């Protein structure tokens, strides 16, 4: 897993924030739970920011959730992050792992194709044939590695794993030991202090494997929700877009008004209500902050490469199209009503909104 110096599209959290982790470690006065790289309070600062140590805030939203998550990981329970797609569950799990274990690299990417090898252990078959079952021939899974090293292992999209794989986790979480009968009767890997499991799941998706209640019992659940504070969401979108544009060396003029428009539209449609308590029907499409970032990013790219570099309401409107009209005709009707009643009203008073209206209008005529 030594890939620190090779060029990566997206380096791991502990690589990206190595400086901050080091600063926190140096300043950390608190008691560290056994096996943890940082004290719980320093881990909290890593995720929620600390102006004194110039630690940037990385997770926006419910601070208490992060505290509860840290406490859950200190206990014998695993942590299960649930919520709609795009609410930064995976990012949060990565940050937690990086803060607690100093490494977020122990991951099981949940899918229907996950086998027992991915959660228990496999064998190097050449060695197995040559030497028989020896510790050298054993290929540990990330879960086994985490147990041995006393680290946090992340299981992404846990509900997409087949039930038998989920069952393996039950015994791992309750007994904290994994037997390797091939190496002899008493050969087992015991979990070192600091071992824990963070799962993420989207409980809304249909056609996934329901978690058994035995497994649920071993996890503390935390629901990660979309941001409700427009100011926070605006800040987050700005940061993310600036970062992405900065990486690609693109500069555009992205006025505050346009970000406001994007955030307001998302908040309205997500809550099914405008700021002035005007009710509207809520589309079923996922309207996460991540989607908003994507829209803002795409709008900026359009403005940079196809326009004069000024991002306007029209750019947002054209991109919104793609988010709403994924596959649901009902959603189109709902957004049409929103456009007809609320956007039109706002368009009378604002240039940005009227550009936006101009761009979303074709969408309603299409259907």
């Amino acid at each position, binding site marked *: 897993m030594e890939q620190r110096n090779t060029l990566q599209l997206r380096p791991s959290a502990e690589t990206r924030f190595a400086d901050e982790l080091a600063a926190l470690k140096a300043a950390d006065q608190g008691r560290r739970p056994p096996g943890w790289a940082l004290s719980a309070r320093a881990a909290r600062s890593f995720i929620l920011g600390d102006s004194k140590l110039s630690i940037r805030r990385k997770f926006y939203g419910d601070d208490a959730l992060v*505290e*509860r998550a840290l*406490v859950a990981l200190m206990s014998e329970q695993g942590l299960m992050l649930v919520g709609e797609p795009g609410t930064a569950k995976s990012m949060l799990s990565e940050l937690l792992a990086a803060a607690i274990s100093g490494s977020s690299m122990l991951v099981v990417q949940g899918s229907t194709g996950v086998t027992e090898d991915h959660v228990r252990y496999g064998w190097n078959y050449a060695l197995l044939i040559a030497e028989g079952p020896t510790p050298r021939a054993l290929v540990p899974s990330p879960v086994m590695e985490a147990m041995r090293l006393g680290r946090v292992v992340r299981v992404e999209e846990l509900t997409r794993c087949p039930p038998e794989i989920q069952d393996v986790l039950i015994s791992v979480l309750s007994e904290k030991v994994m037997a390797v009968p091939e190496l002899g009767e008493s050969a087992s890997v015991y979990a070192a202090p600091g071992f824990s499991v963070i799962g993420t799941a989207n409980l809304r998706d249909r056609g996934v494997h329901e978690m058994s209640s035995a497994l649920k019992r071993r996890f503390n*659940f935390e629901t990660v929700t979309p941001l409700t504070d427009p100011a926070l969401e605006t800040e987050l979108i700005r940061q993310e877009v600036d970062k992405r544009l900065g990486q690609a060396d693109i500069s555009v003029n992205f006025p505050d008004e346009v970000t406001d428009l994007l955030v307001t539209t998302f908040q309205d449609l997500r809550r099914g209500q405008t700021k002035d308590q005007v009710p509207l029907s809520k589309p079923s499409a996922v309207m996460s902050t991540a989607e908003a970032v994507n829209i803002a990013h795409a709008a900026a790219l359009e403005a940079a490469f196809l326009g004069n570099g000024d991002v306007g309401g029209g750019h947002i409107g054209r991109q919104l199209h793609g988010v709403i009209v994924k596959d649901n005709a009902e959603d189109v009707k709902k957004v049409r009503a929103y456009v007809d009643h609320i956007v039109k009203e706002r368009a009378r008073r604002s240039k940005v909104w009227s550009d936006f209206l101009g761009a979303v209008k074709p969408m309603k005529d299409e259907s």
Partner: protein
Amino acid sequence: MSVLDPAATALRLFDAERNLHFFPIRHHSPACALHLREALREIRPAAVLIEGPVDFEPLIGELLAPGVVPPVAMVALPDSEARAEKGRGGTTYYPICRHSPEYVAIQQATELGATVRFIDLPSRHPAMLSDGRDRQDQPLLPMRETMFDRGAYVEAMCARSGFRDGLALWDGLFEARARSTDWRGFFASVGAYCSALRAASEPDELQADGTLAREAMMRACIHDTIAIASGPIAVVTGGFHTPALIDAKPEAPRPAGATTRSNAWLIRYDFRALDRLNGYGAGLPLPGFYERVWERLTGTHDDANSSLTEEILVGFRAHLIANEPGLAFAFPTLRSMVEAARRLAELRGLSEPGRTELFDALRSSAIKEEIEVGAHPLLAAFTTYLQGDRLGDLPPGSRLPPLVERARGEAKSLGLSLEDAVPKTRELDIYRKPRHGQTSRFLHAMRLVAPAFAQRNKGPDRVHGFRADMLMETWTYAWSPAVEASLIERAADGETVRDAAATILIRRLADLEKDGQRNNAEAAFNLLSIAFDAGIGSAADTLVAAVGVAVDEDTNLLRLTNALVIGQALNSRAKGMQSDTSIRAFASLLPPLLDRLARRIAELLYDLAAVNADNVGEATGCLAALAEAMADPDPPFPTQPLRDALQHLMTVQLDPQLTGAVIALAALIGLIDEAEAGQRLSAALAGAFERPGDAVRTLSGVMALAPQLFVNDSSVIAAIDGLFGAVDDQGFLALLPQLRMAFAELSPHETDRVAAVVAAAHGAGEDDIAILQQVPDARVLSENLALSERLRSQWLQDGLAAWLEPSP
């Protein structure tokens, strides 16, 4: 106002030179209460000045009487003219629980022999009525302190210290310091915090919401006390006011109207109501939780074996197992919750878990699913549990308006349980058991006087004729502070529940007049019906007289006929309950009233001849109501005038629908026999109108009153069948909507019968009818029929007639 320096304020709270000590508090805060008690014990004040409306001062003695168990509340009622005036209504509440700093201060001061004074403006002073309520019926709260919950300063502090809201911030900063022994340091911190809150607030707003006027009053009172006191003075006010009071200028005048007296009472209160008030910003919420904290702090409940966290979580689990087993969690979960609460407290730098940590622990450990929009039944149950359900008490013989005592007395004598605020259910056999009848009438009367007390879930509804034959009533009721408060508000209306109810009914009658409804006979009869249910015999005369006026003046036939239905039902009940004295008054007064009503209706019936097409539906409704009232075999009103009017109507030309209805009514009351009715109907159906549909509307009139006439008489069916035969398919399609309307009145069974008769007349068997039972939507059918007809004519034109022949 200059920005006050928090540090300086802290230093100036305890002025040894003037022997004047300021205690900034937050209402219902156990930490403030405990430190205040310690402080008073130490400084031994000669006078304790408390932020409370000055007109509540006489209630202090009552508050300390043995047998008073908080929660209680001091309330002031609007006088009758204020109630009517906009912006001055609403009841003022000053709730007190065991952990209220004000209550603790009063107790402690009395123990030390100090004078206790209230120093706020009188509760009904204009400045006290302008506290920014959103709605008129919202309670007035002299102790409103929303500035602790929101505002720029609170938000900035939360963001900086990592607390999620103003409440968590307060808990973390101050409640967590309840056990420290340094009361000076504690109040200095509260003072500094409140000074900052004050500095961040808008002076204009303070002017507008009356804060400045109230503080002028407080300053004046403090100044007066300094002049006469012979020892230390303690001033206990909301921390927000303290900065404005420290510099009590000698010349401070009292605002005008500072001596207004009010109609103030001490009443029982409960935690649920208290928590609802706190929703309006009156101190800390969840009184059940903070009372437990108080018990721990004061050692009245010190269980060495368990912490507060354990006590609450274990108690909550037991509560769930007993009351909501579906939500209960397992024992290992309980253990991990306690652990999580402790660890969270540690992470947040608190000495022990507080309210927020308990909620967080529950959320994290016990809820194994996604929490949508932040709400979950378990969280709601925990909130209710921590809210508590304690009901306060006053000793027997407390000064209460007689109405309250009488109501309680009567309720108890009827066997209703008033011990707690939990809703209870009672089934009443109102006709057969006299005591149940009495209870029902009492509950009906209470519905008028204190609507929160009881609710009828099931029972005969005479007004709307719905389930009028039910013999049993089911009620839920609960004695709550809201009930007591309503009774106190009604105290001036009468000494007994029934007197007050009578006053209210008569007032409603007057309101009808005010709203221009003086001539609404139906509304008047509804009131009469309520009076009857509540057994208000005393008001019967007045009500019946007023109802009589309404009957004479009403020109709306529908309202009058509906009134007749109500009156007829009332009368038959009154006859059945002659033995009851409160009902007897009605039994003798009703028949003359109904006589007048019937004659009035008969007069107006003649006008139906001139009814225009728009009002035919309403007119049919009148006749239907009349049919209902006259169905009584022994009607309590003269029927001859009505019969005469009907006889007349049968001879004149009416709208077809009304003709049908009149024929039906005449047949129902035996004015004509069924054979004649059939004849008349057949004739009416055969009538020639410019629109063919009109004849069918006759049918609608019949169906609205007496479908059986149509169903039972095959000559009528034959007449309709003839009508269909006479129109072509186009004409039939045009008739279809009218027919559908008419037939909608029939029950499925009756429809089948008609179908059988018609089928038989056309020589069809039962099998042919069966096919038609699955008729598609009428519009689809008519569209398809039209399409079929178009195709047919097209084919005929194209010389394809052969296609139309059935294939061999």
